[in-house]
């Protein structure tokens, strides 16, 4: 690599992680829109419910992605060792 060449292209985030981050950001942007502030469900602002949903869905999705990545890399090791 020449001295002024930027960091190599191999530093790439996994596609699934990129989609996850994009989904997270999109959800957060939508949730913070003022339109959700006044309407309520069960006496609680829809904004509150969206935040609660974020707290439930984001850990579940993150774990699912992580376990999928782990299964994929294990299969890769098994194939490589055959």
């Amino acid at each position, binding site marked *: 690599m020449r001295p002024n*060449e930027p960091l190599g292209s191999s530093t790439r985030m996994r596609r699934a992680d990129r989609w996850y981050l994009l989904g997270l950001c999109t959800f*957060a942007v939508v949730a913070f829109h003022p339109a959700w502030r006044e309407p309520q469900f*069960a*006496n609680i602002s829809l904004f509150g419910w969206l935040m*609660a949903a974020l707290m439930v869905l984001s*850990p579940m999705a993150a774990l699912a992605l992580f376990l999928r990545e782990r299964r994929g890399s294990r299969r890769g090791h098994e194939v490589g060792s055959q």
Partner: protein
Amino acid sequence: MSIELGLVIAYLAICIAVGVIASRRVLTSGDDYWVAGRRIGTVVNATAIMATLASGGSLIGVMGLTYKQGIPATLALFAGAVIGFPLASILVARPLRNFGRYTIADFLGYRYPHTLVRWLVPVLIIVSFTAYIVAQMKAAGITANVLLGIPYETALTLSAIVFILYVSVGGMVAVTWTDVVQGALMLAVVIGTATVMIVDAGSAPKLLAAATEAAPELGRVADKPVSGYLGSFVIWATAIPVIPHIVMRVFAARDAHGARLSLNLAMVAYAVIVLAAVFIVAPAGKMAFPDLEDADAVFLRLMQSEFGPVTRGIAVAAVMAAVMSTTDALLLACSSAIAHDLVRGAWGRELSGRQQSWVSIGSTWLIGGVALYWAFSPPALITQFYTAAIGLLSASLFVPTIAGFWWRRANLAGGVAALTTGALVYLVLALGLPSATISPILIALPASAVAMWIGGRFGRADDASHLTAVEALHHD
């Protein structure tokens, strides 16, 4: 009172004993003292991470905030913390763990090797964390005052001495062992309390409906601008990936994989505690005590009125556990900022393992003493107070850290610019000069990013070998 006091004294004595036992192992090895020899298993680390983050603010403060500002605004803040974990898992866990040192200051000093970085990062950590410790000490003080009848100042002093003691002598090993117990205790008390409240009310929806009928403000978004609670959300989302006491847990994991899984599991446990507190316990407290002067006391008042002495004693221990499990990590991070980052990293003094341990012990007592002095005149709402303190770290460290790992053009000029710009802008706005209607983090973070971009675009590119080494951190 005697049963509660006895339970709490027994619990605190165990913590000190753990510190003393751990000290035999850790006082000669930096690796053992700071990162528990990098041998912490995934589930243990996950519990410890959850306990580290779930502080007095997550137990006492989350309910106080819900009581005062309602469910939606409270969830906005804590949702930020929850999503901070996957951000940390995806953005920093692997490369940081592969970097294999002790602190975030180590990484930033390596990535942007400049004297300003080596001095400024530890100073920012010490300032922010001391404020964070003050808030935790208040939680311990009011808990002992309300549930044990001990004067606030006495409770403050005694609890501070206990956790300074076991942290200073036991390091990360003691912190981890006690965190596991503390995490389990917190989960048990919050879920147990929520269960009792639900059974009393008949069901969770019935409890929530009754509470929001009696106090409609519980369900409304607090009367503050969007930027107020958006700012809290952004602070915590961007703090978790760079906040030193969580980062040290990444370094303590056995490997990158373990670090990532620990963060994910911790997030699940943390979300459970917060949701149970916000949707069940705090509303029950609001119904039972609608006119509390100190909102942070709602959980304690509930404990006092609803449960017998043994349960109250366990609850006090759980709150102490929440406070201690975070404060111990904060103290350790502060002492590492002094002993490892400043003395060794910035000043360049080489110390033997034992010398460094003694400097660490002294630093812990110094920071703890300063925080204790400050805590005698505590802030009003603890969660808001320490969120503002953590905002300083988010504003200054997030962009240079993430860009340092992921942006191809991140360079020394950009890193230094981002660090200083984020810190300065945040401080100026947070101190109210000029007064801003928008949350300081929402200006400081973009300002830091712009500074990074300008430096990266127009500054000299980093050495190819340096960039190659950074790139290699992404691969196991």
